[in-house]
């Protein structure tokens, strides 16, 4: 499934925070090429910098130094408006705590990225339904997140992340709040999504066995550095 073109290229990126006089090197000189269509699992202990790295790739944060090149675009050089457009059109994000807006129904939650992307109202309903069908939640379209199980909420979050047709799916510990069986089903869903032509997935996780089963490649981080990067099996 992976093709030759790099979906993401990280060139010596660092992200340092200053706390008083101390400098915290959350990400320290990481370089990585991720071909389009590949499923990468980012592993590491807490505080190893994997979530920070994911935020840099998501365009939620900017590196202190180095370049994040996603789909040929250097994110460290673009304006905040272009970065917002990148988050809207190129990437989809899934979080450990789902981050669905509790006062909205599933339909409204999934519609939110379409509103932000200024998709015509007439086209939205069909795209929302299609996205929810893909994760098997079309019958829960009018429910609020509080009426769903954890696994269903995460599926809804995946539907929301995919509704704008991104090329890169970023998942920050998507199974962290789920039991093992549900977590496994979510990863199976991600694996299924990876079959879309050119869909690149980066997942941050603690669970190495699952990562080995579902990801194409494992990158292990420690103290902000990339310790290893190789095929999962």
């Amino acid at each position: 499934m992976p093709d030759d073109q790099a979906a993401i290229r990280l060139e010596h990126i660092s992200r340092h925070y200053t706390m008083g006089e101390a400098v915290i090197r959350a990400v320290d000189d990481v370089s990585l090429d991720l071909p389009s269509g590949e499923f990468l699992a980012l592993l590491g202990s807490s505080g190893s910098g994997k979530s920070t790295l994911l935020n840099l790739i998501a365009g939620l944060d900017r590196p202190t130094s180095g370049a994040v090149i996603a789909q040929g675009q250097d994110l460290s050089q673009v304006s905040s408006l272009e970065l917002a457009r990148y988050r809207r059109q190129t990437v989809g994000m899934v979080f450990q705590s789902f981050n669905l807006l509790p006062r909205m129904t599933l339909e409204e939650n999934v519609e939110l990225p379409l509103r932000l992307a200024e998709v015509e109202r007439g086209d939205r309903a069909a795209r929302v339904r299609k996205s929810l069908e893909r994760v098997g939640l079309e019958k829960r379209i009018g429910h609020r997140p509080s009426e769903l199980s954890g696994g269903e909420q995460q599926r809804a979050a995946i539907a929301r992340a995919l509704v704008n047709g991104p090329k890169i799916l970023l998942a920050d510990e998507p199974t962290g709040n789920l039991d093992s069986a549900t977590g496994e089903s979510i990863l199976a869903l991600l694996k299924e999504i990876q079959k879309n032509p050119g869909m690149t997935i980066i997942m941050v996780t603690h669970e190495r066995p699952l990562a080995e089963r579902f990801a194409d490649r494992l990158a292990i981080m420690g103290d902000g550095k990339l310790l290893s990067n190789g095929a999962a099996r």
Partner: protein
Amino acid sequence: MKPRDLSDLALRNLREAILRNSLTTLGIAVGVASLVAMLSLGVGLQQLASKRLSQSGLFDSVFVTPRVNLRGMGRAAMPPSLDKVPRLLDESARQEISRLPNVVEVYPQVRFFTEVRFDGKPFATMVAGMPASSKASGSFDGMQGSFFSGDAAYETILQSEFAKELNPQTSTLIGKDLVLRYAERQSIPPNPVDSKAASSSESLPGGFSVVPKEMRLRIVGVVDTEPASGFGGYGNGRLLIPLQVAMTLRAAQVNDLRDIVRGTSSTPTFASLTVRAKSPAYVEALEASIKNMGFGAFSLLDASKSLATFFRVLDMLLGIFSSLALFVATLGIVNTLVMAILERRREIGVLKALGASDRDVKQLFFFEAGVMGLFGGIFGLFLGWLIGRALNFGTNFYLHRRDLPSVDISSVPWWLVLFSIGFAVLVSLVAGLYPASRAARLNPVEALRYE
């Protein structure tokens, strides 16, 4: 984000914290209400004063008199520009003045002494001719009976004090007849020259004789006020008759003696004319034109301007004091929106992660502030109008108990409706500036981490 989506989201957010947002909106409404109530009071009082004054005919009128050169009577000479040959203020002058631009009507002041016979008893008083337009002056509002049925009707309206002399139960007078006895002037041809006595060879002008006459008038009304008493108008008359009737009587008036001396008695002249302009705006030009024609002319325009300035200052002061309440309300908006940022920190992070730009987030908060301002403005306008109505009600209740005519002291014109709502929205948007930009600047990574 498209405006409709933005408004959908903003309204949804406002509904979520409905109690807090409603209280904030109520705060704005109270501020706007105080502003509207105060300004409507200022506007109402101004309108009341302007209406009374404009209805009185004082401010849209020019009062014309024959120019009299008083040199030799202890007064300084007139400036050269005014030192024109005095003209007779007669019917031809009246016609000429009535043809000037923006003149609504020109009518003479006809006032003469009379003796009224009622129930066989004599009553001495002054008669004044009233033009038909005086009906709209406001002086006849609340009168007993009715105004004259026509310009040529042999009817009279009595001033209430005079009516009480005829009969203390003034309402019983209406419909009854009285007899007016007056002095009619009749022209006498010019005298031949007495060559021994006269210093000039000119023939002496004719004079007039005064003949007592009577006419019967029906009492149609009794009026409390003395319509436009005083200044150049038709005041001091206690028995009012239609001007057209008054003119046909050819009653001898004060200026008749002057006309005899001047040798102009063969042409009846007017003591003064009242020229009504289309609006006070034309009075100044009209006054100048009439002076150029060789007449004396004056108006109360300057007094009117001072009055307008006074009310503008009053409105400004009332506006400033009532704006203080609105200022306090803006602090409520800032507080509500800052609280909303804290509560919706994570939501802002999610929106940004999904692709919302800083501008989208700013607009969302801005819109929420604007909606609170709009609703607060509309509700405040309604509240302010209610307060104005209550003030009106209270004032009229008080006036009614003292047998005084009712007044409208509060008025909400269209400009005040638009201004108050617009001002509430503007103030709310200004109050939303800081929270909106603070929300937009929120770091999405930190916002997503926020529990």
